[in-house]
């Protein structure tokens, strides 16, 4: 046990003396969360729109006011003719244009169906769809209010309720995602580099000739990174909660345990990588290509798994991050207990055992 303590102390010397890496490890989560939280966002807030009002009537005024009052839109300019619309889009001044044709007041008086045109800049499809949806909803509501008191054919009103994230804040998705990426990076990449470094320097050989058990060497090497990863988790959660108002509705204990489970999964992967290569560079490349890319792209962090091609959907099942993100969303946003995430937890635990088993098979106590 004393030997073990001394070994861990040595690992901390390595980590603490490599100031630049330490700074990256501790600074990166903060930067990523702030970046994703503030800069990269799907929320619509004061989107600039243009109005082309050919009717010059009461209705177009009221609808425009409602659009502005919603807080989602900001009138950039009142256009005079159709030709201006395209130019406006080309200049990038606006995301959406609303066209009120000249006949709408007449249609209203005669109680006929009428039309308002919404034109959106679909170079960014997500934003365009969201803008159109918001605007349609506002206009639809207006139409229904106008129709009140009049005999109308049967109508269905849809009442939408966005559960768990009523304001559709994208930070609710990014915090679990960033957490997953960071834990993967710190646990898998850093441990695989730390272990291969000892091989590259030749100190691993000396350790293996010493009375230290190989398992103890590996466990001793990963423990500091477990602590580092958990410290990062706390930082990300605090930022998410206090800066972005992200709730943690489920039990903190369960959340901590699930994080620990995922850290161990990632560590097992890191160890597996380090058993396959003797060079730090190769270890880093494998970590980036085989671990980080799928973690970012296929886990549902950035692209919804449901909208992926079937093949990628199947592949996403072997990405540990996918299951961890599901667990995080459940525990943090829905506040569910273990009874709803035990399956995902079990999958992660199974993967971990598999990686450890494969590592043990690969680990060459006797460096052949």
């Amino acid at each position, binding site marked *: 046990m*004393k*030997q073990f*303590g*001394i*070994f861990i*102390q*040595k690992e901390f*010397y*390595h980590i603490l*003396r*490599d100031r630049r890496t330490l700074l990256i490890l501790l600074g990166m989560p903060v930067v990523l969360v702030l970046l994703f939280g503030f800069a990269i966002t799907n929320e619509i807030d004061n989107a600039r729109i243009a109005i082309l009002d050919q009717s010059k009537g009461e209705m177009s005024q009221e609808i425009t006011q409602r659009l502005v009052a919603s807080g989602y839109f900001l009138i950039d300019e009142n256009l005079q003719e159709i030709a201006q619309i395209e130019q406006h889009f080309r200049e990038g001044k606006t995301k959406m244009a609303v066209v009120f044709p000249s006949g709408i007041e007449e249609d209203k008086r005669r109680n006929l169906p009428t039309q308002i045109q919404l034109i959106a800049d679909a170079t960014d499809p997500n934003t365009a769809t969201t803008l159109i949806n918001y605007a349609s909803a506002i206009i639809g509501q207006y139409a229904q209010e106008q129709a009140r008191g009049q005999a109308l054919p049967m109508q269905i009103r849809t009442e939408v309720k966005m559960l768990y994230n009523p304001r559709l804040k994208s930070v609710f998705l990014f915090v679990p995602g960033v957490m997953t990426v960071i834990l993967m990076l710190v646990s898998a990449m850093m441990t695989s580099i730390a272990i291969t470094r000892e091989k590259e*320097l*030749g*100190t691993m*050989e*000396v*350790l*293996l*000739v*010493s*009375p*230290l058990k190989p398992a103890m060497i590996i466990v001793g090497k990963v423990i500091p990174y477990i602590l580092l990863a958990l410290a990062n988790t706390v930082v990300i959660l605090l930022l998410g909660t206090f800066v972005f108002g992200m709730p943690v509705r489920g039990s903190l204990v369960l959340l901590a345990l699930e994080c620990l489970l995922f850290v161990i999964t990632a560590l097992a992967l890191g160890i597996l990588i380090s058993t396959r290569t003797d060079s730090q560079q190769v270890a880093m490349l494998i970590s980036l290509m085989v671990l980080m890319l799928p973690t970012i792209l296929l886990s549902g962090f950035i692209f919804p798994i449901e909208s992926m091609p079937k093949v990628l959907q199947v592949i996403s099942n072997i990405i540990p991050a996918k299951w961890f993100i599901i667990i995080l969303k459940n525990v943090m946003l829905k506040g569910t207990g273990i009874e709803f995430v035990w399956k995902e937890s079990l999958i992660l635990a199974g993967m971990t055992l598999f990686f450890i088993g494969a590592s043990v098979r690969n680990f060459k106590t*006797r*460096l*052949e």
Partner: protein
Amino acid sequence: MLPAITTDKLTKRFGDFTAVDQITFEVNKGEIFGFLGANGAGKTTAMRMLNGLSRPSGGQAAVAGFDVYRETEKIKKHIGYMSQKFSLYEDLTVRENIQFYGGIYGLPGKEIRRQVQELIGGLGMQAYANTLVKSIPLGWKQKLSFSIAIMHRPEIVFLDEPTGGVDPITRRQFWEMIYKAASEGMTVFVTTHYMDEAEYCDRVSIMVDGRIAALDRPRALKEQFGAGSMNDVFLQLTRPKP
């Protein structure tokens, strides 16, 4: 008295290639045993089988009386090892390296503190005690490595080309340290390229293509081959026959 190391037809094959081919020898206790050979002759592979890093493909061997197949854990407690690559941690200080290696060999805290004083004092490194190892001169690093490899008083110490790239004066000092360790009863098993170092050994074996081509005291070998120096002996053995 049991010999420190015995091997009987010890063999290591990598696929079709036989790196070490049925070598048989004994190393006596307290002896400085030189293990010579050209690059790729199988020296390092043979040494790795003895210190438990590599599992033999055939034959028998015992180190400090323990079997290399079944008792590697026991062997590890009785040997010291200094690898070909530099084996100290560059981002730890001299003192921390000594404390670390003392610790993993299970020396008690009091003993470690004593060793720190003794080693640093003995090497005249007081000024460097709290310096990171990466900033001390290579010669001192090698001497420090050796002192650390024997700080837990092993019965046998394996040195894999310990003096590579070191200046002649430091090499000389290094060999004085080896002599001192041997005079205290430690068995020294050393591989080297330097033929002048071979002359310092009690006995040498010369490996050629995985086999032991000659094994005796340096003087006896020179007589046997009618050579003036170990260098000539080595060349006669390793030069391709016409």
